[in-house]
C-alpha cells in the first residue's frame, strides 16, 4: 500500500499529468454519456408528438374480420359512448396514388383537425392535407375524377367525381392523403369492411364488463372463423405499443451511432495505453528506487494498476458530469430560440455505466505498461535512460502475431473477392459478406497494432519525404519520430483508424452518389415534366412548340405513351427520344445500349425482361388493339425504362401501333444554372400552359433530384461527424504524447539549444514531429481504407461503380496533418521556454 501512497503523492503534486494521461478517456466518457442523454431527449420529444391513437380511445377492436355490422352491434353495447370505424382505400387520380382514410373529422376520436373549408358530410366529398392539395394540383371547391372502384378482376371502373371541400392537418403529411367520414366512404367504395373500430366508453363504465360484451359480439359475428375473429385491446396498450415502436426507431438509430462510439472507445483505450507507458517510463528511476529498497514486482505493478483505475474513475466522473451539464444546457439554449425539446433527466444507471466503462478502459489500458514498468531492475535507479521506445525491434513473438493476423485478414478478404456477386445476382444476401469485410478490416487493424513499430520507418520514408528534404529541422524531426518507433506507432495507429474510416465513408459515399445519380436519371430525367391532369388528356403539339420557343428552356422533349399487350401481359410503353434528354446518358444498362433505339428497335425494362424472358437481340411482338409490331430488343435496363414505362420505342413504331398524334407529356431542362435559372424555367412553363388554358400539371423533377442528393450528403455528413469522434481522440492522443515526450527529451532539447537551435527552431521541430505522427497515420489510413471501401462497395451487390475521390482524400490527409501539428503547438511552446541550462541539468 505504501508503494501506492508514494505514487499518489507524486501524482498529487502534478495533477495535470494525470489529466493528460486520462484526457482521451475523459473525452470518450463525455461522448458516451452525452449520447445517452441525446437519446433520452430524442425519445421524450418524439413521444410528446401526436400519437396515432387519440387519448380518448378506451378500447380498440382490430386484427380480424370486421364489418359495419359489428360496428352497429358494438354501438348498442351498454357503456359504449361512441364507436368509430376506421379503414382506408387506395385510389388513383390521373397517374397519382391517392389514399383516402375514414375519419370522423371532429370529436375526441378524430385523428385529423380541420384547417380550412369544411369537413365532408356525405358521399362525393373529401378533405385533403395541404401538401396533397399542392402536389396533386387540387383546389378547394373543385371536383376531380378519382378512380375509386375496381371490379373483381382488379380492372378500374369509371372514376367517381369527388369534390374537395376542405383542408385538414393530420399526423404526417406525405402529399397523397384524403379523408372522408366512414359512412360516406363505405358507400363510395361499395364495400363494408373495416380495418379497426375505436371505442370510447361512457364515464363510469366498467372497461372489463364492456370488453366481455364486445368479445361476445365478435364471437357471434356471421361467417367468422375462430382465427379470423377480431381482438379487443385497451387504448392504453395500443398507445404503449405505438410509443414503443417509435422508441424502437429511435433506439435503432442510436444503436447505429453506438457502433461508431464503440470504435472511439477502442481508440481511447489505445491512446491511454500509450500515455501510461510514457508516464511510467518517465518514473523509471523512482520505480527502480522503490525496487532497490525492497518493493516487490507484484506490489509495484498492482499499485500502478490502481493508479490507472483511479485515473479512470476521476476522468470518467469528470467526463460524465460535463456531459450532464451540457445535456441540460441544450434544452435551455434551444428554448431561447423557441424550439421546444424535452429535458434529458438524469439517467442514473447510464451514468454509473459510463464511469464504470471509463474505469474498465483505463484498467485494461494500464495492465501492460504497469507490468512492463514493474520489471525495471533496481540498477536503473543509477542510470539515466529515461526514454521509452528506445528499442527499435519488436521481438519475434510480435512479428509472428502480426504476420499471422495480416495473413488472416488477407485470407478473409480473398474469400470475399472470390464470392463477389455477379452483376444482377438473385437471392444475394450482402450481410455475411459485409460482416466478412469488417472482420478482415479488424484483423488488418490488429496486425497493424502488432507490427506498428516496424512500419514507422518505412512509412516515414514513403509519406514523409518532403519533410525530410526540408533541411536540418525536418531531418531532426524525422529522426526524433523514427528514433522512438514504439511511441510513434502507438499514436499513429489511432490516427490511422480514424482516417481509414473516413476514407471508407468518402469512397463509399462517392460510389453511392453515382448510384443515386443513375437512379434519379431514370426517374427524373429532366428538370421539368409537363403532363395533363386528367386521364386521357393530352399536351397539344402547339404547346410543345411554344415551349421550344422559350429561351429559359432547353432540351424540350415531348413523348407519347401507349398501353399495349405483349402476349397476355399488359404493358405501358413510351417513345421518348433518348438522345434529346442529356441526363439519360447517366443511365445504366444491363445489356445493350440505349443509343441503339431506332425504327424497329426497342429498349425494355428489367421487369419486362423477367416476365417475357427476352434478352438483347430477341424479337418481341407488341399488340395494340388490332395493330401489331415486331421489334428487336437492343437494350435491357436494370429497373424501369425512363418515365416508369416497360419499354421505350422509336416514335415511328409508336405511330404504327396506333399512338395518337398528340403528346402525353413533355420534358424540359432549364437553360440557365442555379436557383434563378430553375425559377425562370418554371415560370416559362407555367406561363405557356396557363396561356393555353391552364389544364396541365408541372412537376419540378429537379427538386426530387436535389432531394436525393441532399439526403446522400446528409448521410455522409452524419457518418463523417460520428467518425470525427475517433479522429478527435486520435488528435488528443498526439497532443498528450507530444506533451509527455517533451518532458523526457528535455536534455536533448537543451543540448540542441546549446549548440545553436533557436527557440523558434525548437518549436518548429517539435511541431513537425507532431505533424509527422499525422503523416504516418493518415498515409497508412488511406492505403488501408480505400481498398477496403472498394471491397465493401462491391460486396453490397448493388452494382455501384468503384470510384476514387482523389481531392477529397488529399484534403483529409492535409487536414489531419494540420490537426496533429496543431496538437503539438502548445507542448512545443512550453519546451522552447525552458532555458538550456535547466534542460541540460535534468536527469
Amino acid at each position, binding site marked *: 500500500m505504501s508503494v501506492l501512497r508514494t505514487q499518489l503523492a507524486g501524482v498529487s503534486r502534478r495533477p495535470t499529468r494525470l489529466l493528460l494521461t486520462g484526457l482521451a478517456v475523459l473525452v470518450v466518457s463525455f461522448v458516451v454519456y452525452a449520447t445517452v442523454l441525446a437519446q433520452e431527449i430524442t425519445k421524450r420529444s418524439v413521444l410528446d408528438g401526436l400519437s396515432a391513437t387519440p387519448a380518448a380511445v378506451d378500447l380498440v377492436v382490430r386484427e380480424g374480420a370486421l364489418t359495419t355490422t359489428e360496428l352497429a352491434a358494438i354501438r348498442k353495447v351498454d357503456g359504449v359512448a361512441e364507436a368509430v370505424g376506421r379503414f382506408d382505400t387506395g385510389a388513383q387520380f390521373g397517374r397519382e396514388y391517392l389514399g383516402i382514410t375514414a375519419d370522423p373529422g371532429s370529436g375526441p376520436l378524430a385523428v385529423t383537425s380541420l384547417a380550412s373549408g369544411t369537413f365532408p358530410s356525405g358521399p362525393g366529398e373529401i378533405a385533403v392535407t395541404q401538401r396533397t392539395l399542392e402536389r396533386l394540383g387540387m383546389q378547394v371547391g373543385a371536383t376531380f375524377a378519382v378512380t375509386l372502384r375496381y371490379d373483381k378482376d382488379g380492372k378500374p371502373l369509371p372514376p367517381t367525381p369527388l369534390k374537395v371541400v376542405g383542408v385538414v392537418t393530420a399526423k404526417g403529411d406525405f402529399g397523397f392523403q384524403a379523408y372522408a367520414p366512414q359512412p360516406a366512404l363505405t358507400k363510395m367504395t361499395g364495400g363494408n369492411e373495416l380495418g379497426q373500430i375505436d371505442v370510447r366508453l361512457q364515464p363510469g363504465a366498467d372497461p372489463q364488463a364492456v370488453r366481455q360484451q364486445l368479445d361476445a359480439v365478435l364471437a357471434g359475428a356471421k361467417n367468422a372463423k375462430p382465427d379470423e375473429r377480431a381482438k379487443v385491446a385497451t387504448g392504453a396498450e395500443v398507445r404503449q405499443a405505438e410509443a414503443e415502436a417509435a422508441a424502437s426507431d429511435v433506439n435503432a438509430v442510436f444503436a447505429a451511432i453506438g457502433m461508431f462510439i464503440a470504435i472511439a472507445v477502442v481508440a481511447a483505450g489505445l491512446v491511454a495505453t500509450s500515455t501510461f507507458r510514457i508516464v511510467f517510463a518517465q518514473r523509471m528511476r523512482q520505480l527502480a528506487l522503490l525496487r532497490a529498497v525492497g518493493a516487490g514486482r507484484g506490489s509495484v505493478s498492482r499499485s500502478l494498476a490502481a493508479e490507472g483505475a483511479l485515473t479512470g474513475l476521476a476522468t470518467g466522473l469528470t467526463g460524465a458530469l460535463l456531459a450532464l451539464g451540457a445535456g441540460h444546457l441544450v434544452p435551455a439554449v434551444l428554448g431561447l430560440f423557441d424550439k421546444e425539446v424535452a429535458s434529458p433527466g438524469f439517467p442514473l444507471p447510464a451514468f454509473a455505466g459510463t464511469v464504470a466503462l471509463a474505469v474498465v478502459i483505463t484498467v485494461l489500458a494500464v495492465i501492460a505498461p504497469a507490468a512492463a514498468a514493474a520489471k525495471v531492475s533496481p540498477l536503473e535507479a543509477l542510470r539515466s535512460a529515461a526514454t521509452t521506445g528506445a528499442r527499435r525491434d519488436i521481438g519475434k513473438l510480435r512479428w509472428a502475431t502480426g504476420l499471422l493476423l495480416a495473413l488472416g485478414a488477407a485470407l478473409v478478404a480473398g474469400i470475399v473477392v472470390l464470392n463477389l456477386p455477379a452483376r444482377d445476382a438473385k437471392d444475394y444476401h450482402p450481410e455475411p459478406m459485409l460482416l466478412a469485410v469488417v472482420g478482415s478490416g479488424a484483423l488488418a487493424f490488429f496486425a497493424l497494432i502488432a507490427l506498428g513499430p516496424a512500419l514507422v520507418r518505412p512509412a516515414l520514408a514513403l509519406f514523409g519525404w518532403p519533410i525530410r528534404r526540408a*533541411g536540418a529541422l525536418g531531418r531532426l524531426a524525422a529522426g526524433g519520430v523514427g528514433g522512438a518507433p514504439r511511441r510513434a506507432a502507438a499514436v499513429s495507429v489511432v490516427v490511422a483508424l480514424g482516417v481509414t474510416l473516413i476514407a471508407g465513408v468518402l469512397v463509399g459515399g462517392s460510389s453511392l452518389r453515382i448510384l443515386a445519380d443513375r437512379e434519379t436519371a431514370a426517374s427524373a430525367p429532366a428538370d421539368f415534366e409537363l403532363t395533363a391532369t386528367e386521364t386521357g388528356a393530352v399536351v397539344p403539339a402547339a404547346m410543345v412548340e411554344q415551349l421550344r420557343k422559350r429561351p429559359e428552356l432547353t432540351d424540350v422533349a415531348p413523348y407519347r405513351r401507349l398501353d399495349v399487350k405483349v402476349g397476355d401481359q399488359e404493358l405501358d410503353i413510351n417513345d421518348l427520344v433518348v438522345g434529346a434528354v442529356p441526363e439519360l446518358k447517366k443511365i445504366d444498362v444491363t445489356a445493350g445500349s440505349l443509343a441503339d433505339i431506332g425504327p424497329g428497335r426497342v429498349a425494355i425494362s428489367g421487369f419486362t425482361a423477367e416476365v417475357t424472358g427476352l434478352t438483347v437481340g430477341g424479337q418481341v411482338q407488341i399488340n395494340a388493339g388490332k395493330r401489331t409490331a415486331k421489334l428487336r430488343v437492343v437494350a435491357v435496363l436494370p429497373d424501369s425504362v425512363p418515365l416508369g414505362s416497360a419499354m421505350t420505342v422509336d416514335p415511328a413504331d409508336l405511330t404504327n401501333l396506333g399512338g395518337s398524334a398528340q403528346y402525353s407529356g413533355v420534358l424540359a431542362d432549364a437553360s440557365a444554372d442555379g436557383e434563378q435559372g430553375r425559377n425562370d424555367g418554371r415560370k416559362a412553363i407555367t406561363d405557356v400552359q396557363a396561356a393555353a388554358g391552364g389544364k396541365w400539371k408541372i412537376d419540378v423533377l429537379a427538386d426530387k433530384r436535389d432531394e436525393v442528393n441532399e439526403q446522400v450528403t446528409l448521410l455522409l455528413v452524419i457518418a463523417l461527424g460520428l467518425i470525427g469522434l475517433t479522429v478527435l481522440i486520435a488528435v488528443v492522443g498526439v497532443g498528450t504524447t507530444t506533451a509527455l515526450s517533451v518532458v523526457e527529451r528535455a536534455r536533448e532539447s537543451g543540448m540542441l539549444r*546549446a*549548440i*545553436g537551435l533557436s*527557440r523558434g*527552431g525548437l518549436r518548429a521541430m517539435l511541431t513537425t514531429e507532431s505533424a509527422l505522427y499525422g503523416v504516418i497515420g493518415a498515409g497508412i489510413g488511406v492505403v488501408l481504407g480505400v481498398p477496403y471501401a472498394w471491397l465493401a462497395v462491391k460486396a453490397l451487390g448493388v452494382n455501384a461503380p468503384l470510384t476514387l475521390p482523389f481531392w477529397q482524400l488529399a484534403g483529409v490527409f492535409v487536414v489531419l496533418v494540420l490537426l496533429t501539428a496543431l496538437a503539438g503547438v502548445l507542448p512545443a511552446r512550453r519546451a522552447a521556454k525552458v532555458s538550456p541550462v535547466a534542460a541540460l541539468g535534468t536527469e
Partner: protein
Amino acid sequence: MQMQDAMAAVAAVDLVKVYGSGDTAVRALDGVTVGFSRAQFTAIMGPSGSGKSTLMHCLAGLDTATSGQALLGGTDLTKQPDRVLTKVRRERIGFVFQSFNLLPQLTAEQNILLPLELAGRKPDARLFGHLTEVLGITGRLAHRPSELSGGQQQRVALARALVSRPEVVFADEPTGNLDSRSGHEVLSFLRNSVRELGQTIVMVTHDPRAAAYADRVVLLADGRVAGEIDRPDIASVTDALHNLAVAR
C-alpha cells in the same frame, strides 16, 4: 589576480547569479571578475558548490546572470535577447559536455555537422578531415552513438565543438565519464588545438590531473575567485585545493 585587457576572449565583470528567492535563495556567483586570454587553455577549479559550472554557463550565454557582465569578445551577453544568444551559440561558441550529449538517432558525422547545418553554413571539408583524423574517429563516422565507446563519443563531441571554428570552446568536466586513457587523449587534443589552431579553451574540472594540461588555473570558492595558478602542474594544483579546503 590579473585583470585581462581588451584582448580577452572571454571575461566576467562582477558577475552575480542568485537561484531561488527569500529563505531558499542561493548565491551561486557572488561578484566574480575574471578574464580568459585568447589562444590559451584555462581551467576553472573549485570544490563542489563553488559556482564553477554556473560561471561557465553564464559566460557561454546558456544561463542569464542576475547582475554584472559576461563579455564574449566585446559583446555583453547578459544584455542580449535569446535570438542573438542563439546565434552566438551557433557561430562563436563550441561546447563539450560531461555526458557527451550526442543525438542518438544521428550518425557521428551528422552529429558533428549539426551546428553548421542549423546555422545553414557549409562545413570546411579540410578542417573536418583534419579534426576527424587527429581525433582518430575517421573510421567511425557512419556509426550511431550507441555503437561508439565513451571515449569515441566524447571525441565526436569535440569535433562537433571545433568544426565551426568558434571563438571559444567551453568544456564542462569533459573527462568526467571517461577512463584515464581516453581522458588523456581528450585533454591532449584540447591542448594541441590551442597550440596548432590557436583555439581558446575554458574548461571546468575538479580533477587536478586534468587541470595540469591547462596553461592557467582559476580557483573559485563560494561563488568568488579564490586564486590563480600560472603554468600549473599536479602538485601545485593539489596544494592550492588543499589550502582552499583548510582555509574554510
